[in-house]
């Protein structure tokens, strides 16, 4: 063994030992305690950073979960019950099961049922239009059709339908994070329980004007006739300001209200086609409705 080899071995080994000692003491001295559970919880989360939980990002939500004594106020809408169950397991706490929700668009005023009253010529942004005036049709509550909700969606779960000029939610991709709800300046989008077998019934209109005026500006508007309230056996429907609202907690999906609605503004989603066509034909005249009833298995639901 030549001298060089020996010297090499000695120097390198000594450096190694010294480094080990320094590192050991440094690690003792500068140890920062961070709950390792935060990392674990964060890993269990979908890390979409959508803010649907009410926290600025997944890490903040994870921190909140670790800190909280009780998980009942914390819910990740994207991950759903499954993720929350995992989180609860990591933390040894109990998760509260919440019904899966999905965004629905409460306006069905497509081009063919809502006549234009002017031409808009400005920036393509719903909020800008909403601040300027009530929109380019007679209905001042309806969808403006410039797709700010679609832009806001971080999951590609929405698109604008070219034919109707309305946004469409792709149910399978929707995580109910609520970004679209916050983005819509007209408050048209609502998160509703997905319902049994993904079946839902809701009033697809938020027009609060008197029946006659509403009907004039939009053929499929809710006119506040209260026929549905009478039809409902479960007290699930209420009318305020000439507008019906179906409480999804109370609704049992019996479909009676859909049959009686004279304007077809109550929509049913993912139901099988009816055996007997309703007697009054104009009830289901809305082409969208017929289509929905037909493709019951379609994952993309027009709402």
């Amino acid at each position: 063994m030549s001298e060089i080899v020996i010297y090499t071995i000695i120097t390198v080994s000594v450096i190694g030992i010294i480094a080990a000692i320094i590192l050991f003491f440094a690690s003792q001295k500068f140890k920062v305690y961070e709950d390792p559970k935060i990392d674990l919880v964060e890993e269990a989360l979908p890390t979409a950073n959508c803010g649907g939980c009410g926290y600025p990002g997944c890490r903040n939500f994870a921190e909140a979960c670790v800190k909280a004594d009780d998980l009942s106020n914390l819910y990740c809408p994207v991950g759903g019950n499954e993720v929350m169950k995992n989180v609860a397991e990591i933390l040894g706490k109990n998760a509260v099961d919440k019904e899966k929700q999905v965004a629905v668009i409460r306006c069905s005023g497509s081009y063919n049922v809502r006549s234009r009253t002017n031409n808009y010529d400005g920036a393509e942004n719903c909020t800008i239009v909403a601040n300027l005036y009530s929109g380019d049709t007679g209905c001042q509550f309806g969808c403006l059709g410039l797709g700010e909700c679609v832009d806001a969606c971080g999951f590609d779960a929405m698109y604008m339908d070219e034919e109707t000029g309305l946004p469409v939610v792709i149910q399978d991709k929707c995580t109910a994070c609520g970004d679209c709800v916050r983005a819509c300046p007209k408050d048209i989008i609502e998160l509703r329980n997905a319902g049994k077998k993904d079946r839902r019934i809701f009033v697809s209109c938020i027009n609060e004007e008197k029946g006659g005026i509403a009907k004039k500006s939009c053929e499929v508007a809710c006119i506040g006739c209260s026929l549905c309230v009478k039809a409902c056996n479960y007290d699930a429907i209420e009318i305020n300001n000439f507008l019906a609202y179906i409480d999804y907690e109370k609704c049992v999906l019996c479909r009676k209200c859909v049959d009686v609605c004279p304007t077809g503004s109550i929509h049913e989603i993912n139901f099988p086609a009816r055996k007997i066509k309703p007697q009054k034909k104009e009830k289901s005249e809305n082409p969208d409705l017929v289509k929905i009833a037909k493709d019951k298995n379609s994952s993309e639901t027009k709402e």
Partner: protein
Amino acid sequence: MSKINLVTKGFLKENAVLVLFLGLCPTLGTTTSAINGLAMGLATTFVLIMSNTVVSLVKSLIPDMVRIPAFIVIIATFVTVVELTMQAFVPELFEVLGLFIPLIVVNCIILGRAEAFASKNNVFDSILDGLGMGLGFAFALTILGAIREILGSGAIFGMKFFSGDGMLVFVLAPGAFLVLGYLIAITNKINSKKA
């Protein structure tokens, strides 16, 4: 992840240079010609495979706190071996690459793979990973070198096909940045299409 995937991901999906932007110093510095790029790439591949193997073997022995010095020592050893061997047996190549061979030690790809892959996976997978990442690196460097050589000196692998000078800028450093930029853009395009 399938075994084949381990090797192929280094070429496009997780290419060290074109996607992860690691080891840019040798990438920009050595790729004046295709052959230089290839040689540098192969040298790195060798070190990468060896260090991945060893790191994966000893991963459970090394305490967390000293893992980085340990990895660096392992890597440095292999780099020095490569350096000395090259100097002894291929001095012409060493003359061109000599400056950059020691830099392999701090090439982020190698430490990065040791830290991110080899210290968590078994030996066989680590070898495949080293092979894939290394070949991907060599692939990127060769392409980069080839483009720079073609445009800059009108030649490919030293064979001239165009009399007269090429566009000098490609032999110089700015050309390296330019070509790298466009290669990254093309890779992104391909990857985004696949995804």
